[in-house]
């Protein structure tokens, strides 16, 4: 539970009055009822975007968050050596794939139209990869891997990754997952 700070500076566990000193908490600002950009009414009241101009109420920008220019990419390869006994045979003629990480948050997974999952790093050829498998997040020049509760787990440089925990990545790190998929993290030059 996030801590809330009262006007006296106490950390409160209640949202109406401070749980330490009883001071009345400041009212949260009323949510916008119309688009600050084009004055169109915000409908429904909790809409994330303006229906008229596409203004994003959360970020204050238009449209989806802009891609950030990043120097990071992953190289997707198939490594038959990773195969376990239950795995099907690895595809023989798999062309290594370079995926540039352009978003703040990059999903590794398998595409599903039905579930509306469209991963940035799509590994549709390996059915032991979860639809939502892991995330590579970029923020303030740092890069981190997080397994988001995949069914079959993720390994970083050969050791199992604890789900839902961020692990810093560096150039050359090896992420292995699924039957025989290997991702190599690379800081590309330019």
């Amino acid at each position, binding site marked *: 539970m996030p801590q809330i700070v009262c006007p006296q500076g106490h950390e409160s566990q209640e949202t*109406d*009055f*401070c*749980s*330490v*000193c*009883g*001071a*009345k908490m400041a009212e949260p600002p009323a949510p916008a009822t119309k688009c600050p950009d084009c004055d169109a009414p915000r409908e429904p009241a909790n809409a994330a975007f303006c229906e008229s101009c596409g203004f994003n109420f959360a970020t204050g920008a238009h449209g989806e968050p802009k891609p950030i220019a990043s120097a990071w990419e992953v190289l997707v390869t198939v490594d038959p050596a990773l195969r376990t006994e239950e795995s099907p045979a690895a595809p023989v003629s798999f062309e290594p794939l370079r995926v540039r990480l352009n978003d703040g948050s990059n999903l590794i997974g398998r595409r599903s139209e039905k579930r509306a999952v469209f991963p940035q790093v799509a590994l549709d050829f390996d059915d032991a990869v979860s639809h939502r498998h892991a995330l590579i997040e970029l923020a303030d020049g740092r890069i981190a891997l997080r397994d988001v509760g995949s069914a079959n787990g993720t390994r970083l440089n050969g050791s199992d990754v604890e789900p839902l925990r961020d692990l810093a990545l560096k150039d050359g790190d090896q992420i292995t997952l699924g039957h025989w998929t290997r991702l190599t993290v690379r800081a590309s030059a330019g």
Partner: protein
Amino acid sequence: MNQFKAEVFQNAYLPVGSPEVNAIMTVTVESALGLGSTGDKVIGVIFDASGSMEGGKIHAAKDATVRLIWMLPAETTFFVIAGGEHGVLMAPLARATSDNKQAAIAAIKRVKAIGGTCISTWLGRALEQFSLMPGAIRQCILLTDGENEKEDEPLLDSMLNACEGQFQCECRGVGADWKIEELRKISARLLGSTDIITRPDLIEADFKRILEQALNKDVSDVALRLWTPQGARVKFCKQVSPDIVDLTGRARQPAPQLFDYPTGAWGKAESRDYHFCIEVNPGGAGDEMLAGRASLVVTTSGVESKVAEARILAIWTDDESKSTRLDRRVAHYTGQADLAQSIHDGLDAHARGDEETATALLGKAVRLAYESGNEATTRLLRRVVDVESEEQGTVRLKRQVAKEDAMALETRSTKTARLSRP
């Protein structure tokens, strides 16, 4: 499922610089089935079988206990203790089956009134029995006609410490030779009431009423939890309806700023009022703060759950039209507490022979009872004083006052009237 409802009545506006916040909280249970207890009910009966009970009283007490046993539903559990110098277990804890009832009644018939009165031993026996069924609703009835032996006093105090929170106890005094303070001490600690049964033939009706109330309870071990802000002080916390019980010194402190006051078991459609008086650090004009957060906490096999909550506010203002208005309920119960105090002090003065003070205080009591519509108390007052004017509170002390009448007035003076709808 749980239907506890808590509502606070107060005038939240305080004059600038004033620290005292008063509020009345009304707690109502619509249905509390399945909360807090296993659903089992244990009824314990302790009747005085000391030498002083010899004659009509022991017969009436035995008869009333036998009748009460017959009334017990088969799903309840019961035990019976005959009290003398020692508490003697006449019928150990058992289901109220027809066989067990008959065995208990046969044992009760053999009881003879003999020996002294050592109430601590009676309660000790009851505690042993109740502790066999800790999850049940545990209700005891204690009937006596005399004073506890002086030597038993310190033992009784430590026994009450052991019994507190383990069972509830209703205390009844038969006749006029028992001490109100003594039984009040027991019933207050064990969350029951004390009342007088003026004649032995009235015991049965009273037992029946206690049993009905006990069987109606379906949630036990409810605590009233009061949170106060840092630097605040709880001046008092009292139950004010149906009767006045001062809980101020009874709180446990599960954490800093939290006070847990015991309220015992609750039944269907039960409603009680509480009066909180909290002193906080006063604020300036326009400041608003929470002076208290009152909630009801039910503990089920070690797990606490909050079943109702209400907030007590303080808003400082320099607008006198707001800050000088007294909340009707706060005013009413302040008056009822004043009424009980006037009766207590008035009877005290009367006993000392100070007729002037007694007349003044009992007269004030008559006026307060009249103003608040507390007719039950007015009726009891009229047996002690001749009333000339209820409105003015002018009275004359009766020349002859039966001791039972004075005791009935004193024991029942803490019964309050509820405020009628405006």
